[in-house]
């Protein structure tokens, strides 16, 4: 199965394609056959012994044994450990309800901030933007967010904002901005001094020194989603020259 998967890396697969766990035709008699562990990421699913594709897209591979489907979508499905930008909608008692663009709102406890105690409540109002991560995110339970990591430190999470602009892009662009050697990010770096927060739910928040620059950056990011690399670089160059 591992070799079968490796052959298909980079190809377009559709939901319903499966890979079964059968050993190869040639089994060496001298060594013990060691079954290899396969880690299946988003878009791939385990069903008994078989690996099923459940999203259409391109199969990607990472050493040593990770496979996942690279697909386009705009609707976010929460997953544990992902950092997202949420908007506080309800403040009721001990818990805030946060809208992150999913099917239901997530709950964020007031104690899940750095240095928060029962007497010392965090200063969070309805309508605030929070940068937080999921601690519970499966299809059977209500999603839960926290603004603190496992050792109790905030690490930049929590309420942010004060000016700036929040807008949505596709999930693919958000991931491309966050990937290690991102072209879009390196293009953006040379443009204006600005601050950017990227949520994995497709929400971006930008702040720059003037309103016009903020709007320029927001428009650039929203439009470069579907552009090829040369088109995008041309657009950024025009923006840098001040034409936009």
């Amino acid at each position, binding site marked *: 199965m591992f070799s079968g998967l490796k052959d298909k890396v980079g190809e377009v697969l559709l939901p319903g394609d499966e890979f079964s*766990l059968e050993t190869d035709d040639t089994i060496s008699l001298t060594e013990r056959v060691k*079954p*290899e*562990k*396969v*880690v*299946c*990421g*988003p878009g*791939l*699913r*385990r069903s008994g012994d078989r*690996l099923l594709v459940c999203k259409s897209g391109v199969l*990607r591979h*990472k050493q040593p044994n*990770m496979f*996942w489907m690279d697909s386009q979508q705009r609707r976010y499905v929460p*997953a*544990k*450990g*992902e*950092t997202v930008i949420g908007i506080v909608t309800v403040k009721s008692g001990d818990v805030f309800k946060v809208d992150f663009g999913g099917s239901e709102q997530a709950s964020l406890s007031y104690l899940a901030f750095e240095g928060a105690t029962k007497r010392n409540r965090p200063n969070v109002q309805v309508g605030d933007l929070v*940068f937080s991560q999921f601690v519970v*995110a499966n299809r059977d339970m209500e999603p839960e967010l926290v603004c603190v990591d496992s050792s109790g430190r905030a*690490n*930049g999470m929590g309420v*942010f904002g004060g000016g700036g602009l929040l807008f949505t892009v596709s999930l693919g662009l958000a*991931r491309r901005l*966050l*990937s*290690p050697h991102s072209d879009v*990010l390196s293009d*953006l*770096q040379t*443009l*204006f*001094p*600005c*601050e*950017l*927060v*990227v*949520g*994995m739910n497709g929400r971006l928040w930008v*702040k*720059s*020194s003037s309103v016009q620059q903020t709007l320029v950056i927001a428009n650039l990011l929203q439009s470069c989603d579907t552009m090829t690399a040369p088109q995008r670089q041309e657009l950024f160059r025009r923006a840098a020259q001040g034409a936009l």
Partner: protein
Amino acid sequence: MASDSVKLSKNLLRMKFMQRGLDAETKKQLEEDEKRIISDEHWYLDLPELKAKENLIVEEKSFGPCEELRYGRFSFKGFNPEVEKLMLLMNPRDETETKDEEDVSRMQTDVTDEEMALRYESLVESMKKKFAKKRERAAPEEEEDVNHNAVETTTKRKFLKPQD
């Protein structure tokens, strides 16, 4: 008393004061009987033993570890220095270019570490002088004797008894 004809009940035999008199075999018998009673009461499934299959496929729901996504907050050209510090802390440390970027991102209003150290040093001196006793303050501050030719004599002034 005809102890042979009277059969003592098992419960009686199990009691502590009777255990001393019994020999080892009867004790073992009693224990086994007890265990058998207990295990008969326990229910168990009469199925063949199923071996749990080793799962070779591990499911991972998030894109983060797949694509090695970085930290979500960014700041460019020194717009927000705290976020820039966070970027250095949170992102994986295998980039060798970070040292060059640090110099570029420093804003002009920043105080370098060396300036801070110099200032702190002079601050400590002035604070120390403020709390020094009057006698220490009166002594000459500068050390003109670089070669340490003259030996310094520090005699503590003692109380002089008045002579009659």
